[in-house]
């Protein structure tokens, strides 16, 4: 049976007709064409598919599209404003916080969620805050530095 759903994605109202079992990540990627959110595993372990739902960073491979009905969603595509990179995107670039780039959208969205809740995290808080996201390339070091650097930049800007 098809379910009609409506949600705000990156500031725009979106509607769709989905099966009850349709995963949110598949809805974003296949129905809306937002392929910036990647799929890295099928057990909710890797965090590549992390997005923001109502200001909470969630793993969109373990949420159903129907659960997002009426919610506000932000994906990596919606993070930059008017062509200006979000400070965390900029910091990932400046600090060499990515190599193959596959975990990056999810990692950045987790970082956004982390900084929302804790604008000035310690190194240890960053490391714990990102332990739900796996990166196989960087060894995490420059990702941690990127979050530190974005935290400083956002502090300066506020």
């Amino acid at each position, binding site marked *: 049976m098809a379910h009609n759903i409506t949600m705000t994605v990156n500031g725009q109202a979106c509607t769709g007709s989905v099966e009850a079992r349709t995963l949110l990540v*598949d809805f974003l990627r296949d129905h809306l064409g937002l392929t910036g959110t*990647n799929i890295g595993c099928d057990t909710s372990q890797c965090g590549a598919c992390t997005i923001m739902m109502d200001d909470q960073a969630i793993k969109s491979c373990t949420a159903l599209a129907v659960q997002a009905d009426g919610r506000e969603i932000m*994906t990596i595509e919606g*993070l930059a404003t008017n062509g200006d990179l979000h400070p965390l995107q900029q910091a990932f670039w400046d600090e060499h916080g990515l190599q*193959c780039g596959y975990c990056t959208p999810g990692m950045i969205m987790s970082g956004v969620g982390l900084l929302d809740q804790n604008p000035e995290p310690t190194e240890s808080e960053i490391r714990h805050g990102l332990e739900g996201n796996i990166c*196989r390339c*960087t060894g995490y*070091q420059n990702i941690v530095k990127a979050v530190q650097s974005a935290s400083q930049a956002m502090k300066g800007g506020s």
Partner: protein
Amino acid sequence: MGKYIGKSVKRVEDPRFIQGQGKYVANLKLPNMAHVTILRSPHAHANIKSINTDAAKAMEGVINVFTGQDLIDGGVGKMPVIWQVPDNKIPDRWPLVPDKVRHVGDSVAAVVAEDAYIATDALDLIEVDYEVLEATIGAKATTENGKPLVHDEIENNISFKWGLGDREACDKAFEEADHVVKLDLINQRMIANAMEPRACAAQWTAATEDMTVWTTSQNPHIIRFGLSAVTLPMLDEHKLRVISPDVGGGFGSKIFHYPEEVIVPWIARKINRPCKWVATRSESFMTDSQGRDHVQNCKMALKSDGTITGLYAELHADMGAYLSSIAPLIPTVICITLFSGLYKNPGIWGETTGTLTNTVPVDAYRGAGRPEASYLVERLVDVAAQELKMDPIEIRRKNFIGKDEFPYQTPVAFLYDSGDYHGMFDKLEENADYKGMRAAQAKAKEDGRLVGIGIGGSVEASGYGPAATVGALGFYGGMWEHGAIRVHPTGKVTVFTGSHAHGQGHETTFAQIVADKLGLDVADVDVVHGDTDLVTQGMGTYGSRSAAVGGEALSNAAKSIREKLVALAAHLMEVSEDDLVYDDENGNVQVKGVPDKSKPFAELAFAAYSGHSLPEGMDPGLETSAYYNPGNFTFPSSAHLVQVEVDKDTGEIEIQKYIAVEDCGNVINPMVVEGQIVGGIVQGVGQALYEHGIYDDDGQLVSGSMLDYTMPRADNFPMIDSDRIETPSPSNSLGVKGVGEMGSITSPPAVVNAVVDALSDYDVKHIDMPLTSEKIWNIIQANGG
């Protein structure tokens, strides 16, 4: 060093990744595209008595279902093994198996349907009648008489035996040794787990018989050759385009020619629709070629003063159920050739038995044979230090090949190009404050804390490799690289490389090389890779070869461009070429000593294309290509020092300090190099502490998900202190050595050495990786807590 080489230029590939615009195969959507799923064997070893696909075919939305026999009847070839050692017994491997499954995850049937959900549902409707057979597991155990045969024609499940070294000198060393250290080691099964699961898409144009295949490969040209020459011989190479766009990590696991790269284009052609298959992570665990898995019985001969005189090792390497593309290379040529390590050692002998088991095939995984060698050497040296009561750095220094002894011929084939092992360890000791750390450790131990310091040092062969050498050792192709430079009429430049980046940053570093060699702004140089129609030839990226081989090809191509520009400028300015100089700063060609008499790069580029006035015999245009076949491998080296503390109550290991010094020769982009080193170290620590592909006796992969297969996470590490020395490689004009694998080669023994050191008050000589807290806790308990 130029304007860019040696500088941490920010990566030009990053803007698309940080904004979610990466072009991964899974993102591809073509009109009328169908989706392919593959039925995987639930059994490790079974005969397929029958397959009934009727119900699946009848399901709404299913386009068709194919079995192994369908593909064989449809003309597919067997999966090729493109590196073979002498007397190698090669088992048959079909893209879809027709009669017998040999590992959990073996491909049994393929569904093509309107979407991925339907294609997945239909798998459940395929009825397969299996006759389940006993499985055989374990690199060494599988060779015992009476074990089930994975392939009936391969006796005792032994695919090959291969040895290298000076057996006589080795035997003599052990006869005359003052001290012999013996170790039985297991280098466990590893699973690469690149974050992007493999994927393949294909589009067939029936009218023109053109095929395009998109695949997550580290080397699309090799896949093009494999498909057209072997597995899909009905496709002509010149009408086959293979594209590996953005690839989300490889670590070796995306080198190989995989069955899905045959199945998907075959179906696309058969049904005349574009098709796509994307692996689930479960499929990645069951089908991506895995790594390591050796049983190593080894010993080292020494004099009482710590001088190493010999090394003997017998390896049993578990190759899995089939030989993956270059699998025979990994535990043989690429491994035993590094048994000399950083040391002078006259008496080395190593031999490998490659065995077949009912497990996923094993092939290259980051380091690929070299971590297996360095682990064995560095564990033996460390235990020798322990037994001879020497400091672990002191015993290493006693045996180092001296800075002035390069090029150095080892007894295991390699001619090391350059290095300064003492200098590297000087820097390591200094950066770590080694003496201070040892003093603090002694104090901590007095306080009852289990603090350990571990040392690891390695050299590896990178920059694979001289074509004649790799050919003589069993490779079917060459390991040269191809590069091309196209200067456009406006003076902007497109660079084409046969290397492939899947995280390494070639779009930046190769642009740095070409910009420097032509005196251009790096922003005016664009790098293209990963498409066989755009890049005419290539060998791809593995064996830490891209900079040393691919970069050198581009450097050579740039030389030809410069020569043409100088000849053209001489003609236009009516002066002799000898009176001209190429300005490395801005690409202008100017009269020597008269800077205002010059021709700008862009003006010359336009003149080359206008062709209005060219020297006699010069063709219009400004583009060139070069092949570079290296004369030798390059030999990067590294020194690591790690401090761990073991929690007595839980057995948990905390990494407290990690200091690394690497020598990868000259450096193109220090930021990228450090990223490779730190990433490699963490991956190697993953092997030392966490990761293990465990099969039970029935051949089921027990750690077959990211829930069960533990990988390093952000909170497992402190900041790693990474530094470098530079001994330029004489093997290429850039002076570079490979760096992508070094971290993962040196870190496993360094970490194990540290943990054994932490437990020095207990009766511990060796602990097999991964050093789980359970293993450590049991050791502590067995020794009275």
